[in-house]
C-alpha cells in the first residue's frame, strides 16, 4: 500500500471543474480537492453524495420552534403570568401572536447555530486544530487536487498536464 499522492495545482475554478471531469472520466480516484472558496458544481462533478444538512436544518428548526413554545409558556404564562397588552388571559393560545416573533427567532437561531456546529463536527474542525490542507496556497487563490498513486505516476502526470495544472508534485501523504 503506497502512501504516495500526487498534488496538482490549478489557478482557475473553471479549469479545475473541467480537470476534475477529465480525471474522473479516466477512472482515477480523486482523494480530495482543496479550494479557497466553495466552487459551484464541484460536488456534482466529484460525484459526492448530496448533503443531508438541509434535512438537519429542518429538524433543528422544529426543535427551536418547540423550545420557544415551551419557554414562552413557562416564562410568560406558568411561572409568572404576564399581562400582555392588557389581555391577562393566562392562556398561551390567546396570547400567541405576541410570541410569534420569539418563535420565529428561536427557530432560526437553533437551525443556524446547530447547523454550524454540525458542520464543524462533520468536518472534524475544532479550535487549535492543525490545518489539513497540504499547500497554504489553497487558502489564497489556488486549487489543489489530490490523487492517490498506484504505480501510474507517468500516466497521471501527462493527464494532469493536459488538463491545465500549473504545478504537479509527488509527495508522501501525512498520517
Amino acid at each position, binding site marked *: 500500500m503506497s502512501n504516495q499522492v500526487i498534488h496538482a495545482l490549478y489557478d482557475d475554478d473553471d479549469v479545475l471543474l473541467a480537470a476534475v471531469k477529465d480525471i474522473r472520466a479516466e477512472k482515477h480516484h480523486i482523494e480530495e480537492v482543496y479550494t479557497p472558496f466553495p466552487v459551484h458544481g464541484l460536488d456534482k462533478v466529484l460525484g459526492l453524495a448530496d448533503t443531508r444538512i*438541509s434535512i438537519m436544518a429542518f429538524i433543528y428548526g422544529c426543535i427551536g420552534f418547540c423550545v420557544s413554545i415551551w419557554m414562552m409558556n413557562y416564562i410568560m404564562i406558568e411561572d409568572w403570568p404576564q399581562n400582555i397588552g392588557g389581555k391577562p388571559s393566562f392562556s398561551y393560545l390567546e396570547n400567541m401572536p405576541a410570541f410569534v416573533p420569539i418563535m420565529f427567532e428561536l427557530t432560526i437561531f437553533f437551525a443556524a447555530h446547530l447547523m454550524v456546529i454540525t458542520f464543524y463536527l462533520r468536518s472534524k474542525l475544532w479550535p487549535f486544530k492543525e490545518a489539513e490542507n497540504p499547500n497554504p496556497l489553497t487558502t489564497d487563490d489556488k486549487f489543489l487536487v489530490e490523487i492517490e498513486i498506484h504505480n501510474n505516476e507517468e500516466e497521471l502526470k501527462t493527464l494532469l498536464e493536459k488538463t491545465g495544472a500549473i504545478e504537479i508534485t509527488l509527495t508522501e501523504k501525512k498520517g
Partner: protein
Amino acid sequence: MYTFTNKLRNFSIVFMVVGFLGLVYGFLSIPSTVKEAQAMVAEAHLGDEHQQEAAHGADHATDAKQEKTHDASHEDNSHAADPHADDAHGEHLLHQLQNKPWAALYVAAFFFFMISLGVLAFYAIQRAAQAGWSPALYRVMEGITGYLLPGALIVFVILVLSGLHMNHLFIWMDPEVVAHDKLIASKTGFLNVPFFLARALFYIAGWSTYRYFSRKFSLAQDQANDISNHKKNFRISAGFLVFYIVTESMMSWDWIMSIDPHWFSTLFGWYVFASMFVSGITAIALVTIYLKSKGYLEKVNDSHIHDLGKFMFGISVFWTYLWFSQFMLIWYSNIPEEVTYFITRIEDYNLPFFGMLVMNFIFPLLLLMNSDYKRINYFIVMAGIVILLGHYIDIFNMIMPSAVGDQWFIGIPEIGGFLFFFGLFIYVVFKEISKAPLHAKGDPFMGESERFHY
C-alpha cells in the same frame, strides 16, 4: 407559435357561461324589501340549524341547543329595542344582501385583474434587473399581462356603477352616510366619486401604456439587429416600477381599503402587493407548465420551474410576514377603531380568515421547502392551485366583511363570479399568447436563459 386550441377555447367559454349564469342567479335573488331580506335570513338560519343537527347527531345536540338559546336571546334583544332600531337593522341587512352579488363580482374581477398586474410587476423587475434566467418566460408573462387592460376596465366599470349608486359597496359614496359621519366627511377631499374615478383611470392608463410599449419593444427586438429595443425596454421598465409601486399602493387604498373608510393600515399597499405578486408568479408557473405539457416552450427546463417555485415559496412567506405585521400591531395595541377590523374577521369569518393562513403559508411552506419538490411539476401545480385559491380568499376577506358583514357565503354567485373571470382570463391570456412566437429569440440574454442551470 402557439395556437389557441378549440378545446381550450370551448373550455373557457363554458366556464364563462356557467359563471355568468351563477352571477345572474345571484343578481336575480337580491331581495328588494326589508321583509324579503329578513325572511331570507330566517330561512337560511333554519336550514343551517337543521343541517347542523343532522350532521352532528346526538353528541352535539347540546351545542345546537346552546346556539338556539343564543339566537333566542338575540331576538329578544332586538324585540326589546324600539321598532325604529329594528327597521334600521332590517335596512342594514337589506343593503348587505343587495351588496352580496356585487361583492362576489367585484372580488373575482379584482382577483384576476390583480394576477395580471402582479405579473406585469414581475416582468418589469426582470427587465429592469436585466435578468438572465427569465427571458425564456417573457412571452408567457406578456401573455398573462394581456388580461390587464380588459380586467382593469371591468373593475373600473364596477367602480363607475358604484359611483352611480347601483350598489352600496363603497359607503362613502352615499351622501346620506357622509352627512352623518364626521370621519368620512373629513376625508371627502380625497374620497369623492369624480376624483376616485379619475385616479382609477390614471392608474389604469399608466399600467397599460407601459404594457403596450414593453410588449411592442419586446416583439420588435425579435426582428432587430441591434439591442436598442432591449435598452428602451430596460428604461421604461425601471420607470414603470417607480410609477407602479406608488399607484399600486394608492389603488389598494382606493379600491379595497376605502370599502371600510373608518379603518386604515399603513402597510396595506404592501400587503396587497405581496398578494398580487405571489398570485402572479404562481400564474406564470402554472401557464408555463401547461404550455410545456403541450410540447411548447422547449427552451424552458426544470431549473426555470425551480426558480419560479422558489419565488412562490419566498413570496408566500413574505405575504405572511406582512399579514402578520399588520395583524400583530393592531391586535397588540387593541385600539377600538383599528381592532374592529380583525374582530369582525375573527368572529364572522373565522374559517376563511384562518383557513387562508393555512393555504397561503403553511401549505406552500411545507410543500415547497424541499429543493427537489420545486422541480417536480406535480408539486408546483398542487401548491399553485392552493395558493391561488388562498389568495382569492384573501381578497374575499378584504372586501366581504365591510360589504356584506356576517351574511357571507361562498355560494352560487361567488363561485359563479370566480368561474366567469377564470374563463375570461384563460380566454384572453391564451389568445394573447397565441399572437406571438413563444420564444423571444432576439433577447440579448436569451442564450443565458437557454443554458440556465441550477
